C-alpha cells in the first residue's frame, strides 16, 4: 500500500478548476414552474394529432410456446385498428438482444412477456379488446426460485458494468481460522422493483414510411428515458435505420431509478404498433402492474459474509460471497460484493458472484445496483462484528480505514469516511446510544444505528456539448442529457453559467432530445460528472475561439475530455448513515422518527436539489429496509403483489425528521467542478443503518429484508 500524495486532496495537476460563482447556490429548479403548473411535457403529454392507443398482450405462462392466437373477436370491436401477434408482426433486423426481440418468435421465456398488442382509437377500447384475444399455449415447467444451494449456480464472465467476477487476495481461510474474532452470517434481500412515479411510456410516430423524398422512413419516439441517445442507438439497429433517422424526445422524466436506463420491450412494441397505423402516433403507457414484468427489477440476493479480526478489531479477513439471479432472456450480473473490495483494510480478502439462470423477467439496474444490496449485508456484518469485539461501530470502522484503495493500491482522491462518521455522530447524538434492547419509552423500544455508504465516481465517455451565442444575446447550451426529476436542468445551467462566466439567466439549456449533441445515459450517478465536464470543455473552447463578446451565431462544440486523474486516483464518494428507530414492543411495528446522512461527494452543485436527491435515496433506503419485496409466486411465476396497495413503498407517515448534510469540499481529481454524483449514494447504507438500529432497539438481528413486524414479534 502506498501513502496518498499529501497534496492530492488540495489540487490536481491536470484539471483546471471551474471559477465558482453560481455553482454551489440553491437556485430554484428552472423547470419547477412548469412542473407545478402541469405544463412540463412528459412522454404521454406531447400534443400529437390523431393518436392511436396501444395495449399490450402478455403471456399467462412462464415458459413454453404460443400455439395459437385468435383475434377475431378483438378485431370486431368498434375502434380496433390492429391486433399484433408474433405471427403478423414485422421482422426486426437484429434479434441479438432477446429482451428487444419483441414478437419475433412464439417462444415464452417468462410470465408477462409481450405476445402481442391491440391498437385502437381509444385506450379503453384497446384494453377491452386485449381481454378478448384468445391464446393457446404449450406450457413447459418453469423455474423461478433463487436458492444459495442450487447446484446449477454459474460464474458470470464479469459483473455490472465491467468488474471482475471474483477477487482473491491473501489466504482468507487461513486468516479466518487464525482470527481472534470471527463472524459468519448469511444475509438476504428480496426481488425489488424500481417503481418510478411515471410509468414507462413510449409514443412512436413513423414518418414517410419508406416513401419519403429522401428515400427512407423516419421514426420519432416520445419516450420516458434516462438516455435518449441510447434508445436511438438500440431502436435504429432493430429497424435497420441509420441513427439519424430515429429521433428520441424526452425533456422531462418522472423518475427512473435505473429502470429507464435502456430501452425495454415496450419501446419496440410501440414502434411495431406505429407501423400498423401508417403515420399516426401509437401511444403506449405501461400500467403499474405491467411495470413489474417489463421494466426491470433488482435481483434478490443471498450473501454470505465472513469476517475475521484480531482482538483489537483490526480486520484480518473479509469474505463476501453473493448469489443472485438473472433472466434467461438476458444476463445481468449485479456487482453485489464489489464495494467490499474497497471499503475496509484487510490483508486477506475474497469476493465472489454466482448466478442462477431463471425463467424470470429481465433484471437490470435499480438505484445503486451492487452497492445498495451489497452494503446492506456488509454493513450489518460490521455492526455484528463491532458487537462481537465489544467496540463502538464507528470505532470499528475507523480502525479499519484503509490508507489507499485496497482493490487497486491507488491513493484516494478524497475519502473522508471517518470524518462523515464522526460529524454525523456529533450531530445525531450518537453518545445517547444504549446497550442493545435496553432503551424503552412507553410501549416503544428505541435504538440507534449507523452504517457507511460509498459509491464510485463514474465518468462516462462519449458526450458532446454545443454552445451557441443566440440573437437575444444569450447562450444556447445543447447536450442530449436527461433530467429524471433530479435537477439536471438547473445544475447543468449553473455549471454552464460558471464555465461561460455569464449570468445564470443568460444560459438557455437544451436537453432530452437526440437532435442535440450526444449524451451518456443518466446512470451510475455519472450525469453531472460526464455532462458537466463536457459543458465546461465546450464553454472554454467557445471562449477561446470566440472571445468574451461573440457575434450572434458563434458556435463551438466539444467532446467529453479525458480525465487523467481517474487513472491515478481512486475516485469515490463516501457517507455515513444514522437512523433512530422505534419498535413497538407488542406488535413489532417499526417506525423511523429520525435519520441523518452525512456525505462526502465533492462539491455540491445545488444544495436545494442535492438535498432532495440525498433524502430521496435515504427514504428509498427506509423503504427497502422495512417494506419493499416483490413476491414471486413460484407456481405461476409472476409477482403477486404487483401494485402499490400490495408492494409497499414508504409513505409520508413513514418518514420522520430526515436530514442530509455534506462535507462541502471539492474533489479536485473528479472534474473541473470538483463534484461527484449524488443520485445513488443516498440509498447505500441506509437499509443497514435502519436494521442496525432495530438491533440496538430490540436485541433482534434481522438478516433478511424487509424487516416486517412479524420478524420482531415477541411471544
Amino acid at each position, binding site marked *: 500500500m502506498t501513502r496518498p500524495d499529501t497534496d492530492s486532496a488540495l489540487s490536481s495537476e491536470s484539471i483546471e478548476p471551474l471559477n465558482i460563482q453560481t455553482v454551489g447556490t440553491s437556485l430554484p429548479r428552472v423547470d419547477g414552474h412548469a412542473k407545478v403548473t402541469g405544463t412540463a411535457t412528459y412522454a404521454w403529454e406531447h400534443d400529437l394529432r390523431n393518436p392511436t392507443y396501444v395495449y399490450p398482450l402478455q403471456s*399467462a405462462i412462464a415458459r413454453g410456446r404460443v400455439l395459437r392466437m385468435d383475434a377475431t373477436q378483438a378485431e370486431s370491436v368498434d375502434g380496433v385498428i390492429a391486433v399484433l401477434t408474433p405471427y403478423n408482426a414485422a421482422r426486426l433486423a437484429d434479434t441479438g438482444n432477446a429482451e428487444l426481440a419483441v414478437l419475433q418468435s412464439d417462444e415464452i421465456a417468462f410470465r408477462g412477456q409481450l405476445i402481442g398488442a391491440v391498437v385502437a382509437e*381509444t385506450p*379503453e*377500447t384497446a*384494453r*377491452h379488446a386485449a*381481454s378478448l384475444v384468445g391464446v393457446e399455449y404449450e406450457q413447459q415447467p418453469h423455474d423461478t426460485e433463487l436458492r444459495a444451494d442450487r447446484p446449477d449456480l454459474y460464474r458470470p464472465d464479469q459483473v455490472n458494468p465491467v468488474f471482475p467476477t471474483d477477487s482473491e487476495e491473501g489466504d482468507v481461510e487461513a486468516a479466518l481460522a487464525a482470527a481472534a474474532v470471527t463472524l459468519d452470517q448469511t444475509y438476504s434481500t428480496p426481488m425489488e422493483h424500481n417503481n418510478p412515479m411515471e410509468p414507462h411510456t413510449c409514443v412512436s410516430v413513423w414518418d414517410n414510411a419508406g416513401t419519403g423524398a429522401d428515400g427512407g422512413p423516419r421514426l420519432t419516439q416520445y419516450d420516458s428515458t434516462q438516455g435518449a441517445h441510447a434508445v436511438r442507438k438500440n431502436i435504429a439497429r432493430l429497424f435497420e435505420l441509420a441513427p439519424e433517422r430515429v429521433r428520441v424526445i424526452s425533456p422531462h422524466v418522472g423518475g427512473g431509478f435505473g429502470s429507464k436506463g435502456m430501452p425495454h420491450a415496450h419501446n419496440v412494441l410501440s414502434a411495431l404498433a406505429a407501423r400498423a397505423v401508417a403515420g399516426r402516433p401509437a401511444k403506449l403507457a405501461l400500467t403499474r*402492474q405491467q411495470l413489474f414484468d417489463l421494466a426491470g427489477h433488482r435481483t434478490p440476493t443471498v450473501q454470505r459474509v465472513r469476517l475475521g479480526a484480531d482482538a483489537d478489531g483490526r480486520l484480518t479477513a473479509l469474505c463476501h460471497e453473493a448469489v443472485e439471479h438473472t433472466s434467461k432472456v438476458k444476463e445481468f450480473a449485479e456487482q453485489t460484493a464489489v464495494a467490499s473490495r474497497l471499503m475496509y483494510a484487510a490483508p486477506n480478502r475474497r469476493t465472489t458472484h454466482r448466478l442462477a439462470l431463471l425463467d424470470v423477467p429481465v433484471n437490470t439496474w435499480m438505484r445503486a445496483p451492487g452497492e445498495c444490496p451489497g452494503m446492506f449485508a456488509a454493513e450489518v456484518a460490521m455492526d455484528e462484528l463491532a458487537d462481537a469485539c465489544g467496540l463502538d461501530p464507528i470505532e470499528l470502522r475507523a480502525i479499519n480505514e484503509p490508507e489507499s484503495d485496497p482493490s487497486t493500491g491507488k491513493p484516494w482522491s478524497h475519502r473522508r469516511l471517518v470524518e462523515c462518521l464522526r460529524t454525523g455522530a456529533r450531530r445525531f447524538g450518537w453518545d445517547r446510544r444504549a446497550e442493545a434492547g435496553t432503551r424503552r419509552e412507553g*410501549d416503544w423500544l428505541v435504538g440507534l444505528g449507523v452504517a457507511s455508504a460509498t459509491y464510485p465516481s463514474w465518468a462516462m465517455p462519449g458526450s458532446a456539448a454545443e454552445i451557441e451565442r443566440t440573437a437575444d444575446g444569450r447562450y444556447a447550451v445543447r447536450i442530449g442529457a436527461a433530467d429524471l426529476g433530479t435537477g439536471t436542468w438547473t445544475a447543468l445551467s449553473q455549471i454552464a453559467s460558471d464555465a461561460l462566466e455569464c449570468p445564470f439567466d443568460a444560459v438557455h439549456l437544451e436537453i432530452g432530445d437526440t437532435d442535440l449533441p450526444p449524451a451518456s445515459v443518466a446512470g451510475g450517478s455519472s450525469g453531472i460528472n460526464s455532462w458537466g465536464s463536457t459543458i465546461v470543455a465546450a464553454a472554454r473552447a467557445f471562449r477561446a475561439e470566440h472571445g468574451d463578446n461573440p457575434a450572434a451565431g458563434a458556435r463551438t462544440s466539444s467532446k467529453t475530455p479525458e480525465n487523467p486523474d481517474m487513472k491515478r486516483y481512486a475516485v469515490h464518494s463516501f457517507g455515513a448513515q444514522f437512523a433512530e428507530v422505534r419498535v413497538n414492543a*407488542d*406488535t*413489532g*411495528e417499526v*417506525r423511523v422518527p429520525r435519520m441523518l446522512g452525512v456525505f462526502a461527494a465533492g462539491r455540491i452543485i445545488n444544495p436545494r436539489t442535492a438535498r432532495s436527491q440525498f433524502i430521496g435515496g435515504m427514504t428509498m433506503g427506509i423503504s427497502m429496509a*422495512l*417494506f419493499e419485496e416483490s*413476491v414471486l*409466486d413460484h*407456481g*405461476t411465476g*409472476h409477482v*403477486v*403483489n*404487483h*401494485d402499490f*396497495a*400490495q408492494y*409497499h413503498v*414508504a*409513505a*409520508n*407517515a*413513514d418518514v420522520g425528521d430526515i436530514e442530509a448534510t455534506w462535507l462541502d469540499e471539492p474533489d479536485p481529481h473528479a472534474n473541473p467542478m470538483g463534484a461527484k454524483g449524488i443520485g445513488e449514494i443516498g440509498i447505500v447504507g441506509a437499509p443497514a443503518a435502519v436494521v442496525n438500529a432495530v438491533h440496538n432497539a430490540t436485541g433482534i438481528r434481522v438478516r433478511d429484508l*424487509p424487516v*416486517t*413486524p*412479524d420478524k420482531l*414479534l*415477541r*411471544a
Partner: protein
Amino acid sequence: MIPFDYSRATDARTAVATVMARPDAAFLAGGTNLVDHMKLGLASPELLVDVTRLPLDRIEELPDGGMRIGATVRNSDLAAHPLLRRRYPVLSQALLAGASGQLRNAATTAGNLLQRTRCGYFQDVTTPCNKREPGSGCAAVGGWNRHHAVLGASEHCLAVHPSDMAVAMSALDAVVIAMGAEGERRIPVREFHRLPGDTPERDTVLEHGELITAVELPPSPPGARSAYRKVRDRASFAFALISVAAVLETDGDRVRDARIAFGGVAHKPWRATRAEEALRGAAATEDAFRQAADAELGAAQLLPDNAFKVPMTRNTLAAVLRELATEERR
C-alpha cells in the same frame, strides 16, 4: 371499454327495483372499489345506478342514545362527527386507520361494508380464484398467503375482509338496514358478512338489488371505553395485518363486559365471542387478557406465511385491553 349505462337514482325504491330487475346492474356510491374492479376486469356491470344523490347522507342521534348513520355518509365525515368521537371512539379510530384522506373523502358507509377482499389473486384475472370465478381454484392455497385468514377459512377461499370500519361496527353490535322489494330489513353487522364455505363468491347476506340505507349503533353502555388498533407494515395507507376493536366495561379491577372483534384474520370481521366469554367477570390483568386471546385463537388454522397473525393478535388484544383498563382506573 365495455360500454355501460349510468343512471342517477332519485328515490331508493325505484333504485332497488331497477337493480333487482337487472342481474347486470350495480349500485355506485363512492366508487373507490367498484371502479377499480371495472378497470381490472373483475366486474363488468352494464348499468350503474348512482345512489349518492339519495337523501341517505345524514348522521342522527336516536332517541335511545344510539346513532343512525346514513348509507352514503362519507368515511371522513363520519370519523370527524363530534358525537361519534365521544361515544364510539373505536369507530372513529377505525375509520381514520383506513385508506388515505382522499379515499376516505369519497368512500361511503355502505360501500365500506361492501368492499371486497384485496387478495392479490382475486384482483388478478390471470390467476385462478373461486371468489372471482367459482370452481377455478384458490391460488392462495399454494401461493402467497401472508395476508390471508387464520380463522373460518375454507379450502375454497383464504381471503380476508379488508374493512377497518366494519370491525369496529361488529364490536359495537351495529345493525345494517337494507331495503329490498318487500321493504326494509335489519341485519346485525355480525351476521352481515359470510364465511367463505363452498360459496366464497358471496361476501355478504345481501340479495342482488338490496340497498343499504343506514347503519344503526345501539347506545353505548355507561362507563364503556373503546379503542381500535390496527397493525400494518407501513404507518399509513396499508391494509391491516391484523386489527383489534374492543369495548371494555370494568367494575374496579374486574371485567364486567367486553366486546371484541378482530380484523385481518378472517373472511369477515371476526367477533371474538370466546375471548369475551373468558373475560366476563375475570380480573383485568395481562394474564387474563392473553388467556382470552388464546381462547379465541386456539381454533386458528395456520398457513406457511401467516402464522405470525396468532401471536400478533394476542399481543395486540392484550395491549388494547391493558390501555382501556388503565384508562378506566384513572
